């Protein structure tokens, strides 16, 4: 048995920053990546070195690919939506046009596409919306209905650019503080929307708490649920075993790497309850 090659298509390149724009609390950044764009699928991510050559930050940071354009004016390009959160992401957001970053991609699994037309719901929390727009386009082109639900703690943390909205049949917003859309946590709004739109497949991306709540709803409605998880990653390429999530397995629990068997995973396979995991270990 010759196993499928892990990290197939991944390359390490010096990618030039060709655009860096502040959009609300995020930075929309574009990198010239040549061939890498052609291999990128919605759900894949890139891993970027941060801090420069004398940095005390020795690990890469992972970012979901927001959009990959195969043949643009600058050749292939990849776009990211970066939240300036801690030292690494702030460093990245501070890069100027013309600077280069060390970037590896595309990495990880991509969202699976239904073989027949289906009513899909794409649920994104915060910058978790990033990979969903390219997915929406793909799904729409395959003839699927695409309902998008984006939530965040407050209005300006919802990332929903105009051009991204082209492909969706409906867009619902939720905010924890009620500053936009439905007031409340994103998961509270979902059951009603599922019924309303006759949703058959759920795609989700966002904080683990949100994914867990959606997994529960998907289970109740017996819907397929693909979620892009976000676990702390040291290597991004499958060699360190730090990024695992627990999934159900014949002998109890199995820890699988979210960088190569994810980030897109089957929400129904993941064991979301921490206590169950700790008890089993």
């Amino acid at each position, binding site marked *: 048995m010759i196993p499928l090659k892990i990290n197939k298509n991944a390359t390490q390149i010096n990618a030039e920053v060709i655009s860096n724009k502040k959009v609300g609390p995020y930075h929309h950044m574009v990198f010239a990546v040549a061939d890498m764009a052609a291999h990128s699928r919605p759900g894949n991510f890139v891993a970027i070195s941060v801090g420069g050559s004398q940095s005390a930050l020795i690990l890469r940071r992972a970012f979901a690919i927001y959009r990959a354009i195969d043949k643009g004016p600058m050749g292939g390009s990849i776009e990211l939506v970066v939240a300036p959160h801690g030292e690494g992401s702030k460093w990245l957001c501070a890069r100027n046009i013309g600077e280069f970053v060390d970037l590896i991609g595309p990495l990880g699994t991509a969202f699976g596409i239904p073989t027949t037309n289906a009513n899909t719901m794409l649920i994104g929390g915060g910058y978790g919306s990033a990979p969903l727009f390219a997915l929406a386009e793909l799904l729409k082109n395959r003839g699927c209905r695409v309902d998008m639900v984006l939530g965040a703690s407050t209005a300006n943390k919802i990332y929903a650019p105009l051009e991204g909205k082209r492909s969706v049949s409906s867009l619902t917003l939720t905010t924890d503080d009620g500053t936009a859309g439905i007031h409340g946590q994103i998961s509270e709004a979902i059951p009603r929307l599922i019924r309303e739109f006759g949703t058959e497949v759920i795609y989700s991306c966002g904080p683990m708490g949100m994914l867990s709540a959606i997994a529960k709803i998907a289970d109740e409605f017996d819907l397929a649920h693909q979620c892009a998880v976000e676990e702390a990653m040291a290597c991004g390429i499958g060699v360190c*075993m730090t990024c695992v999530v627990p999934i159900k397995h014949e002998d109890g629990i199995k820890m699988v790497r979210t960088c190569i068997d994810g980030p897109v995973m089957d929400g129904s396979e993941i064991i979301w309850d921490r206590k169950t*995991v700790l008890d089993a270990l």
Partner: protein
Amino acid sequence: MSALDFSTKIGSKRFSNPIFTASGCASSGQELSQFFPLSSLGAVVTKSIMTKPRTGRATPRMAETPSGMLNSIGLQGPGIDTFLEKDIPWLIEQQAKIIISIAGETVDEYGVLARRLRALSGISAVEVNISCPNVENRGQVFACHPDTAVAVIESVRRNIGGELPIIAKLSPDVTDIVEIAGAVINAGVDGLALINTLLGMVIDTNSMRPKLAGKTGGLSGPAIRPVAVRAIYQVHQAFPNTPIVGMGGVASGQDAFELILAGASAVSVGTATFGNPNAAMQIKEELSQLLTKNGLNDFRDAIGFAHRGI
């Protein structure tokens, strides 16, 4: 300028170059093979394998620290059966030189693992990771005491038979690493691997609790390199004839050279691979340039050079 002889030896085995992967930092090899051919490494040191499949620890399993990181994987792995059935044949197919790292919770478990490697063809050495908690003795790490370290090595030696070189991997978290080294050398190891991670902890100032699920973790990366150089220097000084596989924070050819000057016969690259999948290849290239630049055309002349007068 004459050609560089880059080969190195551990026990009876020769390796084409001295740059190895570090155990647990290259998984089973497949993940890296997208980036470079594994056969261009001196050797692939596999992640420590135990007898049974292991789930490992809960997450978070890692925390970044200044110029370093903590990990607490808990030796997740498929168990020796699956490992020998799947991973090893694949590595052999890649024409990689293989050093198998083994880990156990009891002296017997090491013996059982060693027996499984007996007469296994296609492997170049066994690295005995004795930095594991001894379940029979209050979870104290085998590598922390000469007697438990020796017990493990003797069990491996007895069971493995043949000529396969045995490398003991020591922990820096001891009062006197030279004493432990001396004990396992007496017990018949062919080489030493220095150093494993340092025990560390990070507390998350938001949750105000230890960041790792396992509370403590192993500190690796450039932060610990001065400790590795010191340990290698001390042990090479005491036992100049025992080959040392050096590791700890090597991220450049210059770093590798530092460990070699201190006394390492080979250098394993661990954490650096997380930041750069091509790290081992870049280090190999930079090291070969440094050796040539310094007129060290036989790699073996560089080993322990810092001990000799100028």
